[in-house]
């Protein structure tokens, strides 16, 4: 397997002076293409900060980050936005769907925003993804009318819309009941196996972590295991 991303000596400090809080303290990590890894660690260990940096939504205070051979630290906001759109998908704990749009409209957003319009091809792919998520009957439903588990599956479909190499999931099942959580994890595992998409899943739940083939433990701002 080839290296998808590699970070070295990541440091992230919030605030300045005496109020400064160092969340990452020289963290290094690499992920290979097609991995399915769980990111474990107690609250405040730096998991969410690491995911935010890997998602190019935030830059570290120092350190290096190379993904698909590109330097993510040196890139400007426009380049990072385009890169994120093409290569990275996100699944958040609270689904974070656009409330005034239907399930399908939410799913095809990453493609539509890149193309400047909703193409028929994008709609077709969105329908396929939602059907695969078991939401064929909910394609044109407003997201407000979906259950928590259904919303999270829509969020997974949206993360996969542009066929990204990496999907970052921050506590994707943290807000779901056990049955819904396992349903979402089964879908993620299936996609990882069949399409080779790399997943990095932050979780506190060891049962969820057990579904992943690799466990990365973060503690006190560094990888401890």
């Amino acid at each position: 397997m080839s290296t998808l991303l590699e970070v070295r000596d990541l440091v992230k400090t919030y605030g300045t002076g005496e109020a400064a809080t160092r969340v990452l303290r020289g963290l290094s990590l690499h992920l290979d293409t097609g991995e399915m890894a769980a990111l474990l660690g107690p609250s405040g260990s730096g998991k969410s900060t690491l995911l935010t940096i890997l998602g190019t939504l935030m830059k570290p205070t120092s350190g290096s980050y190379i993904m698909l051979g590109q330097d993510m630290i040196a890139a400007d906001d426009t380049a990072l936005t385009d890169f994120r759109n093409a290569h990275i998908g996100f699944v958040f704990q609270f689904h974070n769907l656009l409330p005034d749009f239907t399930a399908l409209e939410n799913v095809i957003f990453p493609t539509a925003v890149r193309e400047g319009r909703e193409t028929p091809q994008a709609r077709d792919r969105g329908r396929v993804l939602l059907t695969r998520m078991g939401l064929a009957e909910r394609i044109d439903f407003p997201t407000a009318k979906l259950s928590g588990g259904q919303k999270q599956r829509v969020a997974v479909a949206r993360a996969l819309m542009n066929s990204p190499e990496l999907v970052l999931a921050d506590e994707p099942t943290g807000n779901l009941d056990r049955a819904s959580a396992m349903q979402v994890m089964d879908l993620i595992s299936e996609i990882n196996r069949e399409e080779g998409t790399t997943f990095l899943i932050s979780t506190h739940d060891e049962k969820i972590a057990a579904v992943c083939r690799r466990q990365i433990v973060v503690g006190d701002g560094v990888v401890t295991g």
Partner: protein
Amino acid sequence: MLYGLKIATRYLTANKAQTALLVAGVAVGVFIFIFMSALIGGLAEFILSRTVGDLSHITIEAETDDPALLISPEGHVLVVAERGRTRTATLAEAATWLPLIEEVSGVRAVSPQITGAGFLTRGAQVAQVSVTGLELGRESAILDLAGYMVDGDVRVGPGLISLGRDLVDDLALSLGQTVRLESSKGVAAILTLSGIFETGNGAMDGARAFVSLSTARTLFEMPQGVSQIEIKLNDLNAADATALRIRALTGLDAVPWTDGAEQLMEALNAQAQTGYFLKTFALITIVIGVASALLLSTYRRRPEIGIMRAMGAGRGFVLFVFVTQGALIGLMGGITGAALGYLALLPFPPREAFRPGMLPLDITQGSYGLAVTLTVIGAILASILPARSAARVDPVTAIGQ
């Protein structure tokens, strides 16, 4: 861009009540803008038609010669002829110029006239009058004499005279009776009263006499030429430019009505300025309304903006979505306000039918296109600040909210 338009439209339709209120607010501003335009424009038209409507728009008068001097061979002035009160200068070549002036673009009517002062005698009563000799058939070319006729015929042929109602009453005259008119040159004529007019203007109705051009020639001993040429234009606002053209064409001293009407023009300008202020305030209200509503929307939608940014939407896309919302609100409010303004102005009479005591609202001066255009531009400008604020939203902070 098409997708940005869809997002903007969806945001507006997602909260219909709020959008409707916002559009209504903008529409009220545009309505006020249009109403003020129609009122100020209509008022200006009304004032102009009442003050200038019966006046000559351009007047050509002969230039008076300097008083004659008798100078000795040594250069001393021996005799100076004092300038008389009576105009003696004539436009001797008027007949040559008239066809040329009539061909000038924008000229509606041309009236050659002989003017002077005289005394009207009826029995023992004497009244001083201002006499105007008019060409047969052109009696109503400048002053709408036919429209003001209350008795008799507007046509003043040889031996006939038209007088104002007040003067007729003062002299206890009736139609068909004769009066003696003696000019300032001392020439007298016996004339028959053929028409009585009433303009509502005291100076006109009480001291003006209209006779034929041939009668005036006799009275003022002017066998050829005229004292002045009055010109009526299709557009009285074109008087300055047309006077310049006539001057260039004929070399005559063509004077537009605006010369000597500075006070009227100042009053109209002041009125127009007041209108501009009111319209500007209406626009400012629109801008503030749109800006505050969009700022609120930006704050409310911060988490969504964060999600969009995380999904790969650039700052430009977010900026476009919010500016488009402003433009759509401006467009909808502008069109609604313009339509309401037009409908509200429909029941008012057209400017040709304006009468004293009426509200002179001119539906043709509503500035509908300008109102909609300025509103859309204003709304776009108003949305830039909230849109920039939205584009600067930090996705990490916004998603965490």
